[in-house]
């Protein structure tokens, strides 16, 4: 297979600074060496490559934007985005692991946690010594997490949690779960540690998507956690939504990695596959497909970069992030399907990355706010009418 050298039709690279390019190159190299070679096997066997966690930590990929004093790289959001893009070129499951650890576990501890929680957890999560998960979704509350049933109750010396979460990435392997529950009617974040009595996290099986990622249920039955495990700064539904905003931003970049590898594979295949005595790349319909893909990739790259620059100036609105998440996931899935078409029957084989990405992207389009929910979020912003309920 040819070495992947990026897809950059508009020289978007010229808009990046030196360290952003270095981050991209470093993660790209890591993915080439460590992910591409093993991922199909792990995907087929429905296993997350656990041994990569420490290496991801050594590279500094957990909590990229958080302060150095907690062991993080303290880089800007564009560098964070580029890292997610390169990881997802490998596999959405690997990127999901990093998104959850960074945006859904380290970010809330950093933003809503006590200094003691930050000092204890962040350095360990940054190296990958400890793994985290984020429990918001419930069996009956997905797009509408505000309706959650999980409850926290004040007891002497701490809190008692009851409820069930579902679809929780990393749940089974996590040392700590950020669990969202209602305390006297208000949503609050709680840290539930592995091994706490009454807390279990069985893995969900039978997925046709994100198979190299662990997805779990979290079951909480009279789980007593100490007082110090509440995230004191968390306040209402806005708090978990702030976390999702961070993760969605990473997804918007991540799926461009999927797009690039699907396009790259299709282009190479089209140039070498001969039908009717010409490479199929020579036919107009195939060219139309390739041009569509490349155009959408270029648009998504520019969308992301501007979003990242806005975020670095603290000017990115959550609706801006919704637009990028919504558009890029949809386009990534479309591109994966077109790429599969260009590969013909070969497209369904795991010799090519396309089908795996296509399957993964079905989850990516749904989690962190479905395509439809992001439509409604932006719709409300521009019309003033909420069409949610």
């Amino acid at each position: 297979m040819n070495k992947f050298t990026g897809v950059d039709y508009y020289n978007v690279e010229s808009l990046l600074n030196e360290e952003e390019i270095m981050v991209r190159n470093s993660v790209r190299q890591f993915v080439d060496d460590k992910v591409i070679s093993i991922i199909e096997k792990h995907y087929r066997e429905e296993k997350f490559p656990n041994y990569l966690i420490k290496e991801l930590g050594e590279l500094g990929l957990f909590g990229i934007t958080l302060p150095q004093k907690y062991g993080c790289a303290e880089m800007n959001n564009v560098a964070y985005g580029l890292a997610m893009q390169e990881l997802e070129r490998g596999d959405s499951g690997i990127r999901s692991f990093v998104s959850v650890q960074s945006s859904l576990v380290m970010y809330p501890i950093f933003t809503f946690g006590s200094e003691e929680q930050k000092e204890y957890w962040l350095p360990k999560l940054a190296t990958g010594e400890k793994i985290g998960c984020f429990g918001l979704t419930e069996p009956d509350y997905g797009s509408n997490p505000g309706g959650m049933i999980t409850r926290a109750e004040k007891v002497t010396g701490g809190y008692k949690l009851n409820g069930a979460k579902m679809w929780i990435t990393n749940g089974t392997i996590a040392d700590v779960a950020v669990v969202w529950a209602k305390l006297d009617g208000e949503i609050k974040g709680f840290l539930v540690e592995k091994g706490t009595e009454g807390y279990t996290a069985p893995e969900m099986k039978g997925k046709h998507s994100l198979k190299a990622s662990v997805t779990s249920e979290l079951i909480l039955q009279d789980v007593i956690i100490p007082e110090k495990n509440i995230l004191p700064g968390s306040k209402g539904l806005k708090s978990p939504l702030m976390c999702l905003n961070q993760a969605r931003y990473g997804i918007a970049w991540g799926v461009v990695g999927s797009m690039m590898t699907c396009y790259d594979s299709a282009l190479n295949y089209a140039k070498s596959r001969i039908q009717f005595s010409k490479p199929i790349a020579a036919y107009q319909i195939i060219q139309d497909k390739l041009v569509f893909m490349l155009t959408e990739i270029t648009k998504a790259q520019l969308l992301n970069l501007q979003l990242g620059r806005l975020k670095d100036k603290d000017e990115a609105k959550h609706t801006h992030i919704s637009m990028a998440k919504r558009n890029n996931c949809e386009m990534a899935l479309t591109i994966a399907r077109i790429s599969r078409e260009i590969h013909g029957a070969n497209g369904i084989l795991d010799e090519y990355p396309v089908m795996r990405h296509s399957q993964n992207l079905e989850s990516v389009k749904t989690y962190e706010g479905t395509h439809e929910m992001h439509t409604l979020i932006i719709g409300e912003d521009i019309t003033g009418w909420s069409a949610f309920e």
Partner: protein
Amino acid sequence: MKIAVCVSHVPDTAAKINIGSDSKNIDQNGVTFVVNPYDEYAIEEALKTKEKFGGETVAISLGGDANKETLRKALAMGIDNAVLLKDSGFRDSLSVAKALAEEIKTQGAELVFFGKQSVDYDSSIVGQLTAELLGYNCISVVISFSLDGNKITCEREIEGGKEIVETALPALITAQKGLNEPRYASLKGIMAAKKKEIIEKQPVAAQNYIEIISMKKTESKQAGKIVGTDSSAVPELVRLLREEAKVI
């Protein structure tokens, strides 16, 4: 102990290379440049040696401003200091070696790592020339390196096998693939490298004894010919192999 590592900035091995209009240089348009792959092993070995025995590491590169990218990567991998010997004109291997040797002397480095060759011009000689100019012991094409006090033991690749050799400091080692697994530039390393300065210096002038007259690309292979798809094509295939290709 001061450890120096000399690094060159070369076209990515995956890049398609075209010859420039003067036919004496490559056309750099659209070509990405990277750290010479063999130099990555040299950097890693310098870092490992420092981690074990302490000391200070310095990366030296001769070339234009673009070489700073390679030096920056060396810094991001963990090298302490970087020197750019700024000269973008053509220099032959001996002239490069003279400039590097002078800087290594200034740095006072007793142990020097090079890649076994630079994948651009492929002369595979700069390390050895530099060692000679410095009067240092030299072991080339090294796949394993160990240091014990003053004593160096290396394994080097030879035709059909390997040999184990010993020498003493001061020494210059040229690295072969297999010596180690170069680390990635970590995000923290990249941030730390931002704070380090690349010192620019004028390299000593030296005469060239070799001149590039012209560069040519190898003839590209012609497209294959499909004679047929079943056994009926065999006689025609045999005829072509005999009469056209003249291989049977």
